[in-house]
C-alpha cells in the first residue's frame, strides 16, 4: 500500500508538468441563447452546424481559427424536434429528429431554412421523453443508421423501439439490429462498420461500445416483438439471469459488446463516437475511436481489433474536464480537431455548466501512453507511443491484471462478478523497445481484463499518463 501511494504521488507531480498535450477551448456561444448541443455537423469552408435539444440549428464560423473571440453565429432555423445526429451533404443538412429522418436547407439564400423534407418516418413515437433517435453520418453506401431508444427503461411501446434501422438514400427503412436499450451515440470505425454506445440499465450490466453487425441482437430483448412487423426471424431471448458469453454461444446473432466501459471506472454514460482518420494530426491514434461521456464529462479512447469474426478491444481514459456532459462529438480529419458539445439537462454531469461547445487541439506533444492493446492466445501485446525503459517494462511485476464480467439480467445494471486474477508470467520487449508482449496465465474468455501498468517507464523515465487499460476479451485468438 505504501508503494502504491508513492507511485500515485509521483504520478501526480509528473502529470502536473505534462498536462500540455491537448488544448481544450470553449467556443463562445451566441449571447443569451440556450445552446444544449445535441448534434454537430462539419460543413464546407470551415463552418460548423450545431443543433440543440430545443430544436434550433445554428451555423458557426471561425471555430477553426486560433482566435476564438471572433467566432460568429447565424441561426438557420428553430423548433425542430430534438435532433440527435446531423450531417451536411450536397447543400443539405440531414437530421435525425425524434419523429423522422429529414433534410433541410435554405433555398432562397436569405440565411433562414425554408425547405424541410421528410425522408423517412417509419418508426413509432408516442410522446414519451425517452424515445430518442440517434442518427449516424452516411455509411459507404449512403445509408444512415438510426438507433431507436426504448420507451422509458423497461418497455418498447412504439414500433421498432429497441432496434437500429438504416435509412437508404431513396428513403427506405431497413430494420437492421435488435436488442438496443438506451443509445448515446452512433458512428463508424475506420473499416466503415457501425457502432453505437449503449447505457447501463436493464439487460445491460455496464455501458459499452457495441458493434451493429447487420442482423445482430445486442442483448436487450425488450423490443424483440417488432420483428413481426417486417417478417424477420425472432431475435434471441436470453435466459435471465445469465452471462453474455453463455447466451451468445447459444445463438451467434447475439453480438457481444465490442468494448465494455466498466461502470464508474470508465464513465457512466457513453455518448458520441468519432474515428480518427487524420493520419496523425491529433497524435498517433490513427483509426482509433474517441467516445464522448455525458456523466463524467470526458472523452475516452478505444482501439479495436477483430478476433474470430467478433470485434473487441481496449478502452483508455483520454481527455477530461469538459464543461458539461458531452453528447455529440465530431472529429475533423483535415484539421485534426475534436469538436464536442453537450448538456446536462435531465442527467447530471461533472462539468458544471448547463451546456457547452468546445474544441480540442493537439499541441504536437505526444504523451507516453499505451497506443494499442491487442490479444494473443497467451496474453496481450502492448504498443507504446514511445520507446520504453526495458528494465521496468520488461518486468512482469510492473503490471497487474484482474478480470471480471457482468450478469446479463432484466434488472438494472450488474455488479462485477466472476472475478479472476490472470497472472502475468513474462514481459518481452520488442527489438525497437516500442512494444511489450505479456504472457498471461488464466485469461478468461468473455471477461473485461483490467491491466494496470504502474511500474512501466518510458526510455526517458516517465510513467504512463494513463496506466489503466480495460480490454474486453470476447474471443481468445487461436
Amino acid at each position, binding site marked *: 500500500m505504501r508503494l502504491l501511494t508513492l507511485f500515485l504521488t509521483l504520478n501526480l507531480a509528473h502529470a502536473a508538468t505534462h498536462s500540455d498535450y491537448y488544448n481544450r477551448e470553449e467556443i463562445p456561444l451566441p449571447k443569451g441563447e440556450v445552446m444544449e448541443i445535441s448534434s454537430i455537423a462539419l460543413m464546407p469552408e470551415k463552418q460548423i452546424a450545431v443543433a440543440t435539444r430545443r430544436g434550433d440549428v445554428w451555423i458557426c464560423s471561425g471555430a477553426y481559427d486560433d482566435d476564438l473571440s471572433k467566432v460568429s453565429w447565424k441561426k438557420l432555423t428553430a423548433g425542430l424536434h430534438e435532433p440527435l445526429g446531423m450531417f451536411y451533404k450536397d447543400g443539405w443538412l440531414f437530421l435525425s429528429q425524434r419523429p423522422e429522418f429529414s433534410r433541410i436547407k435554405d433555398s432562397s439564400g436569405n440565411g433562414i431554412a425554408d425547405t424541410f423534407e421528410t425522408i423517412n418516418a417509419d418508426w413509432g413515437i408516442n410522446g414519451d421523453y425517452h424515445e430518442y433517435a440517434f442518427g449516424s453520418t452516411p455509411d459507404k453506401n449512403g445509408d444512415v443508421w438510426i438507433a431507436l431508444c426504448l420507451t422509458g427503461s423497461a418497455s418498447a411501446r412504439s414500433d421498432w423501439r429497441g432496434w437500429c434501422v438504416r435509412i437508404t438514400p431513396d428513403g427506405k427503412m431497413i430494420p437492421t439490429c435488435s436488442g438496443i436499450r438506451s443509445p448515446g451515440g452512433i458512428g463508424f470505425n475506420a473499416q466503415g462498420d457501425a457502432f453505437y454506445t449503449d447505457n447501463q440499465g436493464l439487460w445491460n450490466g455496464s455501458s459499452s461500445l457495441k458493434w451493429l453487425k447487420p442482423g445482430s441482437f445486442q442483448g436487450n430483448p425488450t423490443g424483440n416483438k417488432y420483428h413481426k412487423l417486417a417478417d424477420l426471424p425472432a431475435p434471441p431471448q436470453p435466459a435471465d439471469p445469465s452471462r453474455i458469453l453463455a447466451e451468445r454461444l447459444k445463438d451467434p446473432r447475439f453480438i457481444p459488446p465490442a468494448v465494455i466501459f466498466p461502470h464508474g471506472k470508465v464513465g457512466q454514460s457513453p455518448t458520441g463516437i468519432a474515428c480518427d482518420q487524420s493520419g496523425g494530426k491529433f497524435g498517433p491514434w490513427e483509426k482509433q475511436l474517441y467516445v464522448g461521456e455525458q456523466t463524467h464529462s470526458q472523452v475516452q479512447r478505444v482501439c479495436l481489433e477483430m478476433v474470430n469474426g467478433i470485434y473487441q478491444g481496449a478502452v483508455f481514459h483520454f481527455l477530461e474536464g469538459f464543461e458539461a456532459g458531452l453528447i455529440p462529438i465530431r472529429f475533423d480529419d483535415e484539421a485534426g480537431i475534436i469538436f464536442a458539445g453537450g448538456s446536462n439537462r435531465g442527467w447530471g454531469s461533472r462539468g458544471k455548466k448547463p451546456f457547452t461547445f468546445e474544441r480540442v487541439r493537439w499541441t504536437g506533444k505526444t504523451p507516453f501512453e499505451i497506443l494499442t492493446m491487442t490479444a494473443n492466445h497467451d496474453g496481450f501485446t502492448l504498443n507504446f507511443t514511445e520507446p520504453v525503459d526495458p528494465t521496468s517494462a520488461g518486468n512482469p511485476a510492473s503490471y497487474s491484471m484482474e478480470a471480471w464480467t457482468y450478469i446479463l439480467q432484466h*434488472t438494472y445494471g450488474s455488479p462485477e462478478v466472476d472475478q479472476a486474477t490472470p497472472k502475468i508470467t513474462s514481459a518481452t520487449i520488442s527489438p525497437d523497445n516500442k512494444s511489450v508482449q505479456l504472457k498471461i496465465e488464466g485469461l478468461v474468455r468473455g471477461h473485461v481484463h483490467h491491466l494496470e501498468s504502474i511500474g512501466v517507464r518510458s526510455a526517458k523515465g516517465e510513467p504512463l499518463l494513463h496506466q*489503466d487499460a480495460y480490454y474486453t476479451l470476447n474471443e481468445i485468438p487461436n
Partner: protein
Amino acid sequence: MIHRLFLLLAVASPLSAQDGEQLYTLYCSACHGADGKGATGGAFPPLAKSPWLKGDGQRAIKVVLNGLEGPIQVLGKDYNLAMPPQGALLPDDQLAAILTYVRSAWGNNESAITPNLVKSVRAASTDRTKPWTPEEILMEHPLPLEVTALKNITSSVFSGSWTELPDFSTLKPDSVEEEQFGIISAEQSPKEVHFAIVWEGQFIANAPPASTKKAGAPYTFALDADDSARVFIDGELLVEVTGIGPMGSKRAKTEEIWLTQGSYPIRIEYLQVNGKKGISLGWKSGRKNQNKTWNWLSEIKGDSGPIWPSIPIKPTAEHTAMYRNFIAGTTPRAIGFGFPGGVNLAYSADRLTTELIWTGPFMDGGHHWYQRGQGNEPPAGKNVIKLSNSPALPAGAQFKGYKLDDAGNPSFSAMIGDSLLTDAWLPAPNGLTRKFSLSGQGSDPVDILITDLLHPQPAGTNLYDLANNLLLQLEGVNLQTKNSKSFISLTPGQSATLTYTWKK
C-alpha cells in the same frame, strides 16, 4: 478562455466500503452534487438537509436499491426526474458506506447505515422489479413533519349553516384544540358540511431585509378554500377567498405583504358550506412574480403552478414561429406554427392535416425544455379548436415535409400515389387561409378530410358555421358530408382555398 487539458490520473486502488465519500463522488455526485446541493445549481434534488434522508434509513436504502421515478418535492422545490436503481451495481457494504456518508455530510446528522440493514432491506425487496413511485415509498416511509412558520396555533371549530363567513365574536366554539405541528386542515373538524374553523397564533417572519435601505422584506401568501376563507395578519385582512365552490378555481388568491423580521399575530377563518371541504395556505418570501419556493402551512398544498419556467415561443412581426414537439390534442408527430397576429395551428404529420387551430399565444417551451421534458404541452392560447381526429388522406399517403415562404408560412406536402398534395397556410384577418393544390397524373379524385369532429352548418354560399364562432369559406370546391365527416374532393391539377375566420 483557454484551458489546459488535465488528463486523467490513474485511480490505482479499488474502492473499498470505507470510502463512502469517494463512492459518492464516483456514482452520485454528477447529479446530486459534490456539495450535496444538487448539481447544476439545484436542477437535481439536494441531499443536504433533505427530509428524505431523515429518520428511518430504509427509505433511502430502498430508493438507492430500486430507484425512484416521478414528481417529488424536496425542501419546497419540485422535481420530476428518474433516479436509476443502483441495487445491482452496489454491494451491501458500498451502499451502506455511501448512505452513511450522505447522512452525515453537509449538515445532515443521521445515524450510520450498516451493511446488515442494507442486506435485510435488499432481501425484503427482491420481488420489486420497478423503481418506486413517490406515493409508494412515502406510504411505507412517510417524511418527518417539518416545522412550519406557524407557532402556538389553536383551532376553534364552530357549527352552523352559514353561506358566508360569520362574525365569530358572537359565536361559541364546539371545541378548541392546539395544533402543535403548525399545520391547518379542514380535517380538524369532525364534520363534513356546515362548519367553520378559526385558527389563531403567530406567523414567524424570518426573511432578511430586502435591502439595506429597507427594514422589511416582501412575502406573498396564497389562499384557496372550499368554500370560503380569509387571513388576517397583525389584525389586518390580507387575503380572502369568497363564495362557495371547489379549490383550484379562479377564486384562489395571492397577496403580498411587507414584514420586518419578527412574530406576527395571525388569524385564519374558514367556512365549509356543503360539498367537498378543504383549505390551502402557503407563503413564499418575495414578490408575487418572483420564482421562489412555496412553504405550505396547510395539509393540502395549493396549486403553485407548473414546476417549469414559462418560456413563451413567439413569432416575430415578420416571421412565424415553429415548434415540433409533443403538442396536447394532436399526435406525437406534431408541427406547430404560430403566425404574427396571434393565430396558430398544429399539423399532424401522422394524420397529414392540421388538427388544431387557435388564437392568442402560440406555445410555451418551458415544459419540454425543463429537466427531461416528459409529457404533452397544450397550446398556450385559448379558443383551441380541434378540426379532426383521424387520417385526412387515403391510406398509403406519405408525409413529405414542408416549405416556408419568406414570412415562414408553411406549405405541407404529402404524396398520394403519384400525386402530390400541398396544403399551404397563411394568416388572414381574424383567421387563417388554407390553399390545397393537387398535382400529378391521372384523373381519380382524392378525398381530403376537413373535419370529423365539427358539424358544419350552412351559413351562406360555400360558407359554413363550424362551431365556436368559427366560419369556413370554401372557394373552388364544395364541402361534402358523409357519415358525419366533411370532405373536399380534388382531382390532379385542381386547387381549392379554404378560409377559417373567427367571428368578432
